[in-house]
């Protein structure tokens, strides 16, 4: 079975973002960038399926700036077999919308014919939580979002999903799109020898023009602002003082 894993280069989850004062966006120059944490989980799951002998090939794809090669190398070091980079922009501040990403991925899926596409549930920069579902729709495939457990069986996958009331298990016919949630697995650390080995794995760089897909954004970001800030309040010395303040000052109990 062949697995395609879309991976996005995003601001590292440990970095505190700075919103530009002119409202034009977030300052992404000179900040640490990493593989989107959910995509790292998706890569890990694909690698485990390969280690179990279920998957035969893992292809990772990223769409964005040429610097996304770094995160593709990370995915290769984790155990992916080859990588595709779609050079879509030279501007590190340009985010490619999920609809455009899904269209590009659908085209790649038609060329690569994977049995399973394992994406992250959400990119931690735009927090959109949409690409996997959009891709499944465009391809006319079944989807299983927010996966915390995946079991591949003949012709289908059994997926346990994290939903609002608890967990739901569904069966989806292959080929399918599955999006990874936090509890699916704990990604491995990449070792130095594997990083060295990854440098020799194939990384195919393609231009957006070669795909002929229009990525003009449908949503125009007109303003990006800092949310209202909260300040530290009072220290209370005891449980009695806390109860008193909640009753008589805040009026919430």
């Amino acid at each position, binding site marked *: 079975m062949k697995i395609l894993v879309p991976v996005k280069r995003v601001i590292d*989850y440990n970095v505190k*973002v700075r919103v530009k004062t002119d409202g034009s966006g*977030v300052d992404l120059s000179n900040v640490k960038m990493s593989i989107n944490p959910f995509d790292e989980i998706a890569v890990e799951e694909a690698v485990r399926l390969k280690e179990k002998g279920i998957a035969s090939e893992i292809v990772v794809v990223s769409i964005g700036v040429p610097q996304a090669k770094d995160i593709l190398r990370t995915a290769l070091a984790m155990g992916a077999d080859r990588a595709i980079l779609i050079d879509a922009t030279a501007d590190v501040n340009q985010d490619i919308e*999920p*609809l455009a990403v*899904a269209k590009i991925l659908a085209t790649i899926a038609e060329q690569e014919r994977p049995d399973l596409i394992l994406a992250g549930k959400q990119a*931690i920069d*735009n*927090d*959109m*939580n*949409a690409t996997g*579902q*959009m*891709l*499944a*729709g*465009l391809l006319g495939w*079944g*989807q299983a*979002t*927010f996966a915390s457990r995946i079991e591949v069986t003949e012709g289908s996958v*059994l997926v346990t*999903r*994290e*939903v*609002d*009331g*608890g*967990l*739901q*298990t*569904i*069966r*989806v*016919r292959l080929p*399918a799109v599955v999006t990874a*949630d*936090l*509890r699916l697995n704990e990604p491995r650390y990449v070792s130095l020898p594997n990083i060295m080995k990854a440098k020799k794995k194939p990384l195919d760089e393609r231009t957006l023009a070669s795909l002929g897909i229009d990525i003009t954004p*449908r*949503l*125009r*970001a*007109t303003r*990006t602002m*800092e*949310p209202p800030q*909260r300040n*530290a309040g*009072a*220290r*209370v010395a005891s*449980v009695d003082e*806390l*109860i008193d303040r*909640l009753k008589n000052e*805040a009026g*919430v*109990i």
Partner: protein
Amino acid sequence: MSVLLLGEVHNGHLATDAVARALSALASLDTRVDVLIMAGDGATAAQEASRLNGVARVLVAQDDALAHGLAEPAAALVVSLAPDYTHIAAASTAFSKNILPRVAALLDVMVITDVTAIRDAETFDRPVYAGNAIQTVTSTDPIRVLTIRTSVFQAVGQGEPAPVETVPPVADPVLSSWVEDMAVISERPELTAARVVVSGGRGVGSKEHFETIVRLADRMGAAVGASRAAVDLGYAPNDWQVGQTGKVVAPDLYLAVGISGAIQHLAGMKDSRVIVAINKDADAPIFRIADYALVGDLFTVVPELTAKL
């Protein structure tokens, strides 16, 4: 202009609070809103929806394929109704986030998730970067597909029932099938609707000790929340996770116990009216946003608080 609002159904009942909050968000559009019920048996939920203020009409689609929120048949049905609407909306939940991006792609439009303000028919605010920035976006699409962050809006009231109509089901593409739900039925208030939320983190130490948090919550009539660390470690179920990638809450009172205050957690609770933090580390980041900070060991503080309330 007209809106189609998805009305989520659980065990035959409407997720009334979520739908009522979404209705109040949509009120600023000042246009007709039809609620769509998709269920195996939608009769009760349709009646519940029909009584909410601001509903022009309730549409009910009943089919076994629609009983479990599977994305493919639900999206196909919504797409079949889309030509009559300028906006397709839902409360931002696991149910709608599963379906609406698929709907948007099938309509060749972008989805706008987690809307926190509707400025006009095409302009919306939504948080990005774990709520560290609020972006205003203008849609250039002919149909706007959005999910609404309900914690920001008050629920509408109830009044005279609106008419209920049946809509024909569409053929299920049968790409997926439901196997089972492992739902925890609880008497406690729902996390996203509760007036008080008590959350525990890694500091609570074990599943057994998490009972201390649950006892305090029950004493206060509160919902129980958890940090990602507490869920990952198995102290609490997944649907209690509050944060960037969990549930977003804004209760009158939020108590964070043994939670350090990572930005991903703050993203899910920093709009609460009053925040109390209990932590043994006087420098814990959670204290920077807490209205009341109690530095101490949760194992003495929480039982004392529970006893004295």
